[in-house]
């Protein structure tokens, strides 16, 4: 099982290395988003500190939309989706795509969080890192499932933002609370963990049906 999963993940890395699609769409967007948010919220350190976590998580949540294209939309555009489905069992395909999407979103969160630490002068705490790891896992599962669901047809692709942004709200809210100062950590950590477990399980369960036409 791990062989095909890692093969899918390595293939995604190889395609990204060759085309740099996720890199060129995500990095400039996140950098511009955080810098512009900092300018919009004003120069007061207290005000910036209060908005830092939310800014980073909003950037990550919005970045899921273009990233979802790499799950299946780009495969459909290159006409490679059928070959992939023929070679890899549904469970391994889900796990491989999830692993790739999670890596990309975790890197996106790390970039956004790093920018707010430097520009908004806040500190990175263990609970915010936990929120980043688990929250991006939940968002990655959502992105993987909805990326496949909306891959075929322009009408479906138009639905992607309308589906993934509200569905990812719990991850953004919990991740923001975990990164904020003076927050009760345990309830938000439990909520983030439960949300991630439910989303990963649900998308894994429906993934074979999503692959069928």
């Amino acid at each position: 099982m791990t062989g095909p999963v890692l093969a899918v993940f390595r293939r995604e890395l190889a395609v990204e290395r060759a085309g740099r699609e996720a890199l060129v769409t995500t990095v400039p967007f996140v950098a511009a988003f955080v810098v512009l948010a900092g300018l919009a919220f004003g120069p007061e350190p207290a005000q910036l500190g209060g908005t830092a976590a939310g800014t980073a998580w909003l950037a990550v949540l919005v970045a899921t939309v273009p990233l979802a294209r790499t799950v299946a939309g780009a495969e459909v555009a290159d006409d490679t989706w059928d070959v992939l489905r023929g070679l890899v069992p549904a469970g391994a395909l889900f796990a491989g795509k999830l692993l790739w999407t999670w890596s990309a979103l975790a890197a996106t969160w790390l970039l956004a969080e790093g920018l707010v630490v430097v520009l908004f002068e806040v500190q990175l705490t263990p609970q915010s890192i936990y929120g980043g790891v688990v929250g991006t896992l939940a968002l990655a599962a959502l992105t993987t499932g909805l990326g496949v669901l909306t891959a075929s047809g322009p009408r479906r692709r138009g639905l992607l933002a309308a589906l993934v942004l509200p569905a990812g709200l719990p991850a953004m809210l919990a991740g923001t609370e975990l990164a904020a100062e003076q927050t009760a950590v345990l309830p938000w950590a439990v909520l983030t963990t439960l949300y991630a477990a439910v989303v990963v399980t649900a998308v894994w369960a429906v993934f074979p049906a999503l692959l069928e036409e």
Partner: protein
Amino acid sequence: MGVLRLTGVTRAHAGRPVWAPLDLTLAAGTLTVVTGPNGSGKTTLLRLAAGLLRPTTGERTCAGTALYVRGGAGLRSAQTVRDAVASNAALAGRRDAAPAALGLLRLEPLAARRVGTLSAGEKVRAALAAAVACGPALLCLDEPTAALDEAALDGLVAVLEAVRSTGTALLVATHQPEPLLPVADAHLVLGTGRVRLR
């Protein structure tokens, strides 16, 4: 024992079967050409044979991996031919088979080129190399002859014979069957609601 066995298979679109119940057995190392007018169900048959569609009625059994490749597709356009073939082979757990597949399809001179920069004929050869590297029991090729000139068509026949020699059963749908029929083992003609096997 056939690689693919379809027994009383139909597939319905909007409640109407595309063809009458179909029985078909493909043996290893055979080439079967599928023809028929637009809308006769060629693509549906190939996708069903490859396991991408479930039959509405009847049974499909396939001994091994089945792949469906449309035209010269199946490779990520951003990758080089060498990397794309190796990536697909790795998905099938056969990364070591990639160089031999490139050699079989005489693709070494193009190996460093990006897939997106290849001509239509070169893309078909690259797609076939990637498919061969995966070692499929059944390879369903949908319109591999589209967009090929005469010279490329002649080259495709030689390529398909080379692929067939590896033991892979080939099911090829085309509107230009003439170059393929002399070397084909069977010719399946799909018409409106009926199937004829020559």
